[in-house]
């Protein structure tokens, strides 16, 4: 981030439109470094749009927004280079090994070998999984490899859309452990999820998104 201590995300009265549908109607939210924020709400409430807006993928039509110190109105390309988005797919190359994937994504931002190795260590894929083709991994292992790619490409803000989807109970526990570790190391994580119990226990803050409006409901110490 440009300014130490600045909020990672600061949105004020933001309106975003998908086609002619107002997906966000005056949303305001403030997220600090190291937060794990759960976005909850019914389908179509605007959770995914809020994630995509924070990633610089959806333009604002009104309001003001700053993400990682960059202006959402004018610096969306910069924002895209500094955030990591993980949706229903992992963004991995199935015929490459885990190590090759992580090195590739790291290299797109000029990460050195030591940096990509540190990313593998941090996500626990440096030993057993590094030479395994992604195609042979379980769903949970693929998620972990994808998160290691986010670390390797120095994503400071992780935007995760239904990250627990398709994972079994063990893989979900592993993912939660990984996300807590990442937040402890300074990553800021925003999770949109329908799995309220699981994601709620992970989050330090819970935010309701209803009809394009954002309302904070709980903040843990």
């Amino acid at each position, binding site marked *: 981030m440009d300014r130490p201590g600045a909020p990672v995300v600061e949105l004020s009265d933001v309106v975003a439109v998908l086609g002619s549908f107002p997906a966000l109607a005056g949303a305001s939210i403030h997220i600090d470094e190291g937060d794990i924020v759960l976005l909850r709400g019914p389908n179509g409430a605007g959770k995914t749009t809020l994630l995509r807006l924070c990633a610089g993928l959806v333009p604002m039509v009104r309001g003001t927004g700053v993400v990682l110190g960059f202006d959402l109105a004018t610096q969306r390309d910069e924002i895209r280079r500094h955030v*990591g988005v993980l949706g229903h797919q992992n963004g991995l190359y199935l015929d490459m090994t885990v190590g090759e994937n992580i090195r*590739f994504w790291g290299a797109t931002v000029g990460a050195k070998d030591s940096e990509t190795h540190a990313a593998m260590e941090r996500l626990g894929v440096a030993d057993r999984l590094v030479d395994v083709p992604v195609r042979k991994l379980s769903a949970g292992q693929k998620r972990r490899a994808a998160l290691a790619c986010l670390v390797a490409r120095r994503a400071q803000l992780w935007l995760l859309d239904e990250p627990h989807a398709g994972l079994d109970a063990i893989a979900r526990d592993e993912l939660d452990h990984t996300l807590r570790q990442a937040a402890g190391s300074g990553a800021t994580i925003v999770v949109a999820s329908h799995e309220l119990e699981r994601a709620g226990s992970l989050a330090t803050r819970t935010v309701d998104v209803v009809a394009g409006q954002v309302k904070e409901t709980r903040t843990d110490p």
Partner: protein
Amino acid sequence: MSVRHIARLVAAKDLRIEWHSRVLTNQVLPFAAVTMVIFAFALDAEVVLERVAPGLIWLATLFSMLVLVQRSFAVEVDDGALDALRVAGVDPRAIFLGKAVALGVQLLVLEVVLLFAAVVLYRQTVPIGGLVLLVTTLISATCGLAAVGTLYGGLAAGFRGRETLLPLLTLPAVAPVLIGATRAVEAALGTAGAVVSDGWPWVGLLIVFAVAFGVGGSLAFGPLIDE
């Protein structure tokens, strides 16, 4: 990161995937060889085969290229990697150039094998005097094919039914390459009395085509994959 650096990464990544999966060696080259043999069965007359051999080489190249392009973008969409590249703000010009280079390398290997097959199956000879024209033709035609294949591969990747859409989009667009490359190779091989000097204007056409689709493709690729 510069466009050149990212393009090199993308090209190396595609070639690494090919090295692991061996689709070129295990599927595309046998398919191309079978196509050449089938042509030989269909045109079962030595005189005819010798006359049309250059065209058959390029037809087999085009058909095989479709498989390569499908594969090149299948690896991108299988787990949403192309989306991830776009979302991560990776320069689409670099993605285009990198994928085109990797495709071009594979096409060159394919064309050399097909040329060899034509020498064996269709009794073609490669005169020393036509060697420079032949190599220039292969390189310039490959650049054009790689650019068109990558452009339309990226466009079709976002659509359901891309397997059938890709040939529909690509084959008409590469007709100038088919014509130009066939005439130039005829001149290089001396088919039906053609001489080397007849081939160079066609190489000019191939170069113009490659530059036009290379520049246009790198500019259009971003908006196309965003759609």
